[in-house]
């Protein structure tokens, strides 16, 4: 396989463009193993730079005999942002003998164009779309991880343990115990998660809350997941109070399309020392995901445990009404507080929405559809029964 790649490189006498790029989606396709399963899967190769290029597609990895690719060398025109292709897989019985993931890779390699003038061969890129075939383990088997959210001083951190049942049997009760240690191996807390059942091949999340009453720094979580009498252990490091600076709000007053918009970005320094050279950088992307605006505020010092407004100006000449995606980065030292945004631009207003902006902390509305249907069935039964009794009595009396 590697020889094939190398051969393609060697036979090309090349002059490289200043930017060489390539993309592929999806990056991974996961399939639960079923004996003899046969299916076609779509994938796309992305021409991010909108250029003329040749891409060589091939299959490699353990399962390459199970995959059929319908294309080899493909051409892209500058107008083609992406192209869709297909591959077909047929899962053989032989892989079922070994539980766990079995992998194949669809590799897309950009073949640099040959030129009359040069022979220089530079770095080349290839991107991979992976196919993971998960063969279930006999009995019960779980894969687990740990995510820690909102681990801020004097706050409540949420510990989430996502678990996947990779076994053939369902799990009645899974729960986890998390012990928290300092860097000096001193235990500072123990928390228990809730209990959840998991069907084979399914994923669920166990959660636990922890009142953070320790100083900022790195900690080690030692996690034990118990499931129907069995258990697994793993460790993961996490930080408390790692986010020193947060983006509080973005304000735009008196916006007029075609003029220079003033963006007032309020940031808060949550650390107990001043942060110097803090500046905001807003990127706005067009429909083709290219940056159409790149604006920066002046660098400021934000005092310890205080808020400060950073001001950036966006020249909206040539900008059309519509929705644009964007990214706001507030940089301090080597760190950055980032927020993905959606900017809704109209003639006289600019509305900015951030990720998580409208996410409610808790509580759903409405009654589950299954409950509704159950209630309806009961109502219909009662109605039928009532009519039946009513008419039986009515007819009985008349007789």
């Amino acid at each position, binding site marked *: 396989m*590697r*020889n094939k*790649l*190398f051969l393609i*490189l060697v036979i090309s006498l090349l002059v490289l463009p*200043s*930017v*060489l*790029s*390539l*993309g*592929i*989606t*999806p*990056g991974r396709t996961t399939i639960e193993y079923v004996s003899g399963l046969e299916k076609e899967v779509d994938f796309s190769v*992305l021409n*991010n730079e909108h250029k003329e290029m040749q891409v060589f597609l091939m299959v490699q990895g353990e399962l390459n005999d199970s995959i059929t690719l319908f294309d080899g060398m493909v051409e892209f025109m500058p107008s083609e942002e992406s192209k869709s292709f297909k591959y077909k897989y047929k899962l053989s019985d032989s892989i079922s003998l070994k539980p766990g993931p079995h992998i194949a*890779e669809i590799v897309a*390699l950009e073949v640099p164009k040959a030129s009359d003038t040069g022979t220089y061969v*530079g*770095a*080349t*890129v*290839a*991107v*991979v779309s*992976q196919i993971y075939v998960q063969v279930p383990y006999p009995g019960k088997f779980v894969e687990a991880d740990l995510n820690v959210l909102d681990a801020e001083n004097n706050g409540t951190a949420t510990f*989430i343990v*996502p678990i996947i049942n990779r076994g053939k049997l369902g799990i009645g009760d899974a729960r986890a115990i998390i012990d928290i240690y300092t860097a000096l191996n001193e235990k500072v807390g123990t928390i228990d998660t809730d209990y*959840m059942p998991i069907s084979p091949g*399914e*994923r*669920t*999340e166990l*959660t636990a809350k922890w009142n953070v009453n320790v100083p900022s720094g790195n900690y080690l979580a030692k996690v034990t997941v118990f499931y129907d009498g069995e258990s697994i252990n793993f460790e993961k490091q996490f930080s408390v109070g790692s986010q020193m600076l947060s983006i509080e709000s973005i304000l735009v007053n008196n916006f007029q399309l075609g003029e220079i918009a003033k963006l007032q970005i309020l940031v808060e320094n949550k650390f107990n020392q001043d942060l110097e050279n803090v500046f905001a950088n807003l990127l706005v992307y067009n429909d083709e*995901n290219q940056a159409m605006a790149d604006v920066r505020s002046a660098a400021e010092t934000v005092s310890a445990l205080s808020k400060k407004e950073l001001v950036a100006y966006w020249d909206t000449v040539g900008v059309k009404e519509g*929705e644009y*995606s964007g990214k706001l980065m507030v940089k301090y030292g080597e760190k950055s507080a980032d927020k*993905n945004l*959606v900017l809704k631009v109209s003639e006289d207003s600019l509305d900015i*929405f951030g*990720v998580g*902006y*409208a*996410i*409610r902390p*808790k*509580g*759903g*509305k*409405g*009654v*589950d*559809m299954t409950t*509704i249907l159950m209630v*309806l069935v009961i109502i*219909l039964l009662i*109605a039928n029964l009532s*009519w039946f009794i009513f008419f039986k009595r009515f*007819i009985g009396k008349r007789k």
Partner: protein
Amino acid sequence: MKTRKIMIMQMGFLVLVLVGLYFAYPKADVSVSGNFVKFDSINANVIMISENSDFSNPIYLDLEEVGDSPVNFKPGTYYWKSANSLIQGFRGKFVVDSEVGMVVDREGGGADLVNVGNVKINITKGGDGFMVGHIILEPEESQEIEDFGEYIGREEK
């Protein structure tokens, strides 16, 4: 005759219930474009979203606050249900595909490898048919590289 009357009354009642259900049901559609997911709704005001089919640990998206704006999601499989003050709808599913993308940028004189996809990638460097090292890059991260050999990027586990 009486049986017919009963049948008609039952049918009428059933139609009434179904019409009521039709109007009260929170109707919503989902469309995915890259990392952005847009929910179009007629009478739903909340969307429940979870990475798990059992809706453990869901997030609640208030459609009155979001309006028509798309919401950014990290790549993965998500389950969703629309809801209003009366009913929670049936479970739906959408997938935000991961994208593995790389650029070798030579504009500054040297060569920088940039992750232009939406997931963390593991890049193996090969030379003369052998793997000689690897780099891990988060989205939008870059690293200076030697301008030769092949760089193969795949989604990190």
